[in-house]
């Protein structure tokens, strides 16, 4: 516990330092000579700036700068390409406007956001959450412990939220102590608590009609065609440079892209891998990519006799040439996936053995089992060309080891119903692999007290033990060891055929510069810290 507490303290201190550095005025004003990232100026540059400023001071006061025109950022969302409905226009607007207690860095570590810090009692049953002071909602009211308590109480009481979480069910009590402290008492140790408290902190505005958050932008209007957000001038990390954000859905990527070329869209949330290569050389658009949290996988229904045996599931994994899948299915924009843990995750075992491509070994395993060749039906969501292509590639590769796969394309609603009901042999879908550790518990732990998302009936005692250990881990070391064990158990008894982690590609107008510390992550998360590029190319 001491190790865990000290590790957490060190983590918090490092985070606070990095956040202070990130929201310093100097970082905001750092000149950028054409690169896409913002960096602190070199000492020589600082010296030059000081000299120049002193020269100006000696010459007399500089004339006041004329007010600049309001800057609007328009985000285009091709709705038809939504794999995750959470990335629809309204969802995206909510992410911008409503913040959560914590955020995740590039390695998936939990970082303070609306919480300033937190401490855990030695027995792991009491969490003291300290709310960041000086944070205001969009209507000007101050964020207090009472708001946090209310949100957590709502989450605990919500069956949907509980279904997504692990620790909410272990919360015994949430109490506000003073204006800024919240005490959460658990019935058992749960290291995922902050992951499960990943709730947007909102309140009803004083007008009693609208819901307000604490984000860098507030929603001012919403219609079918677009959602408009206004900059929060009282944002605790500093007023955003962009005055207005418009989120606009499009039913086709082409339309969104055409609008971008016309200058009416500044940011495309997702660009398919097919077109990304043609966009990367555009002089007015910056194409950036990061490894998605989702891995494409063929989820095998372990409840079905075909997949009850781990050897069969291992054989199917051995029969897949993931490199070819990435190249042909994702046009090279992705990395092979060998397990359920997001590769950049801080606790991921980077030394874990990867599942090799060994069709001979796969055939041997399959032939060793009684019964004839395996045949099964794989459900595929309709109208997703990437999934269709991957499905065909998987089908072909499995046919090489005499596994017959019938592909069945279903509309999204029917697909979801069948998945939730467990009415399938296999499904091809993108599965969340991070950054929240609760994800692993959600998808891979055997169902216990409350519903989980383990629709494929996967049961592995070692996996359960590992995940339970991670859940109760008192410190980082124990936690990462538990995750390592989890990965090893999954490697030996894979619940699915993990195919590839996809890359999400975004296109941003070069009018804007995204802070460098956000490289490798979704740029939306730091929208409040985007910078404007001056006509000469430097960020301001």
């Amino acid at each position, binding site marked *: 516990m001491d190790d865990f507490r000290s590790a957490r303290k060190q983590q918090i201190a490092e985070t606070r330092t990095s956040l202070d550095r990130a929201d310093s005025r100097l970082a905001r004003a750092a000149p950028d000579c054409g690169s896409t990232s913002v960096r602190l100026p070199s000492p020589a540059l600082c010296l030059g700036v000081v000299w120049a400023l002193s020269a100006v001071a000696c010459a007399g006061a500089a004339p006041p700068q004329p007010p600049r025109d309001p800057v609007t950022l328009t985000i285009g969302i091709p709705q038809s390409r939504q794999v995750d409905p959470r990335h629809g226009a309204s969802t995206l607007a909510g992410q911008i406007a409503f913040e959560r207690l914590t955020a995740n860095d590039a390695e998936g570590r939990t970082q303070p956001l609306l919480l300033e810090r937190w401490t855990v009692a030695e027995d792991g049953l009491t969490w003291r959450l300290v709310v960041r002071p000086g944070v205001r909602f969009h209507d000007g009211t101050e964020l207090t412990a009472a708001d946090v308590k209310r949100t957590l109480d709502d989450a605990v009481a919500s069956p949907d939220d509980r279904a997504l979480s692990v620790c909410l069910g272990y919360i015994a009590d949430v109490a506000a102590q003073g204006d800024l402290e919240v005490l959460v008492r658990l019935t058992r140790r749960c290291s995922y608590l902050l992951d499960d408290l990943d709730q947007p902190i909102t309140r009803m505005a004083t007008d009693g009609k609208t819901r307000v958050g604490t984000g860098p932008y507030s929603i001012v209007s919403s219609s079918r065609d677009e959602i408009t957000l206004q900059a929060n001038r009282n944002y605790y990390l500093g007023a955003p440079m962009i005055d207005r954000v418009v989120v606009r859905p499009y039913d086709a990527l*082409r339309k969104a*892209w*055409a609008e971008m070329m016309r200058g009416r869209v500044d940011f495309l949330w997702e660009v*398919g891998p097919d077109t990304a290569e043609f966009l990367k050389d*555009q002089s007015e658009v910056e194409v950036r990519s990061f490894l998605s949290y989702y891995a494409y996988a063929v989820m095998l229904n372990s409840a079905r006799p075909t997949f009850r045996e781990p050897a069969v599931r291992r054989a199917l994994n051995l029969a897949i040439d993931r490199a070819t899948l990435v190249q042909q299915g994702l046009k090279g924009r992705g990395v092979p996936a060998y397990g359920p843990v997001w590769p950049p995750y801080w606790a991921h075992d980077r030394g874990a053995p990867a599942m090799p491509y060994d069709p001979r070994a796969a055939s041997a395993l399959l032939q060793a089992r009684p019964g004839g060749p395996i045949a099964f039906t794989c459900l595929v969501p309709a109208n997703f060309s990437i999934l269709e292509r991957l499905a065909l*590639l998987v089908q072909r590769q499995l046919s090489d080891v005499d596994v017959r796969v019938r592909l069945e*394309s279903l509309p999204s609603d029917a697909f979801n119903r069948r998945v939730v009901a467990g009415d399938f042999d296999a499904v091809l879908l993108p599965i969340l692999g991070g950054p929240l550790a609760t994800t692993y518990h959600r998808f891979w732990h055997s169902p216990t007290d409350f519903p989980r998302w383990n629709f494929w009936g996967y049961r592995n005692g070692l996996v359960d033990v590992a995940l339970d250990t991670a859940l109760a881990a008192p410190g980082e070391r124990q936690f990462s060891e538990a995750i390592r064990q989890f990965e090893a158990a999954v490697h030996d008894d894979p619940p699915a055929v993990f195919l590839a982690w996809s890359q999400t590609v975004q296109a941003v107008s070069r009018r804007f510069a995204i802070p460098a510390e956000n490289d490798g992550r979704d740029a939306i998360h730091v929208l409040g810290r985007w910078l404007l590029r001056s006509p000469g190319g430097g960020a301001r």
Partner: protein
Amino acid sequence: MSTLRVRFAAMLATAAVVPLLTYGAVSVYSLREGTRRSVVDGNLNVARQVGEQVRRYISTNLQILQALAADLDNTGLSIDQQDRILKNYVLRFPEFRELTVFDGSGRPVVTSRLGEAGVKVPPDSSATLYGVRMSPVYVDDDLLPTALVAARFGRADRQGGWLVGEFSIEELWRLTDRIHIGSFGYAMVVGPGGELLAHGNPDGRSRVARGANLGADPVVAALRRERVGTPVVDEPLREDGERVLAVGVRVPELDWMVIVEQPTREAYSVARRQERELIAAISLALLVMVLAGLVWGRSLILPIRALIRGTEAIADGRLDERVHIESKTEIGRLGDAFNRMADRLVDLQENVRKQERHAMFGRVAAGLVHDLSHPFKNIQNNCRLVVKMHNDPEYLDLFRRTIDREFALIKRVFEDLRNIARPMPIERFPLDLNKLAGDVAESMRANAETAGLSLAVDLAPGPIFVEGDVFALSRVLRNLVLNAIEATPPHGVITIGSEATGGSARLRVSDTGCGIAPAQLDTMFEDFNTTKRQGLGLGLAISKKIVDQSGGTITATSEAGHGTTFVVEFGRIPQPAVNISF
């Protein structure tokens, strides 16, 4: 500018400058045209290669479709097998994103899609290439260029059936992306109707997504007019104000167009640089040539001009003029020769002057001796005689007259000498030449009669007024008459005449003597020049001086054996208001 300099400049221009300029102009023109042609040809080659690659790419894939259709048509496969084949094909040939078999009624039979087929049979109006029906290219929702292609089945049970594919032509974009001409050049692919299918400039690709049509583009329009295989070259001005070199070719069979564009500032940069270098080199050569010409010309012309000045100075009598030409060439030798010649002339002139002085002194001495010896002899004789006859009053009177006469003669000789050395002052007044001539004739008649001659007067009617000194002109006339008397044998005639014509008045003294040789006519008015046995020969010289001082002229004409005529001419003046007579 001197003629020599002009000629030298003309020679330099003709021999060097003009040929160099001509060569330069021809070279610049050839270079410009040659390099531009090579740039155009280079870009045309690129366009042709791109066109050929596009054609091959399209034809290859259409042939694949045809082959697949033939396989499906002829092999009697089950639906499942066809399904497998179609799915394998879309995996193996990623250009085909979907393959669907349609029956004769247009219903889909089997598809590579997991769900329902997304394609339809292209309409009858679609183009047919390599036996495959192909729809116009369009940009799909994934922003990729796509076309529907359909191969017809021929077997009886498939009559009218089709194998339709969704053909993604993204390789077309990759192909144009790889085309870089210089740093700013790119290629475009345009459809038969002007639709932009591919744009090699990443910033221009958005125009494809927006469905840009280049039908109005001059290069596209020209290509559509031309036959296949005829390239088009143009230099249009683009919307951003940049002029580009655009070359275009039509792709055979597809009827697409490939256009390669490159900003002229880059396309012709090498040519322009070479042109500038050539012009600079030629200009430098020209400058060097002109400078060399100036230097050499100067080294040639200056000595010649010096020689000219020296010669003119010598001709003007300035024998001290010398030229300074420092040259080891013929010009230098010519200068040296000139200087030597001038030195020699000075010496010769000095010798001539010495000789003339000697001659003159001799004549003067001889004349003096001659003119003075007789009077001195007479005086001497009479002085001896008066010693003896000093008591004879008659002789004393004769002695006095003789002495007076001889001293008057001596005095006249001295006066003549003085008049030559220092001209006597002349006072000019209006005088009547006729009166003067009459008076002199009257005074000299006795002298003429004594010599056995007749003195006639032939005067023009009326007074003839001139400006002159009466005494000086009277002396001139008397001198002329005396000379005539001395030159005419007895029984001859001496005539004094006058005439006035226009603004001139002339006095004439003619005789019928022996005449004067032509050689002597030229020198007879010079000092100490006489043909007489006695006298200094100053009479005519003094007469000429007087006439010159009076503003007139005196000339002589003579015919040997027939006589001589002296003419004194003055400018005539109107009769004065007050008649000055003497």
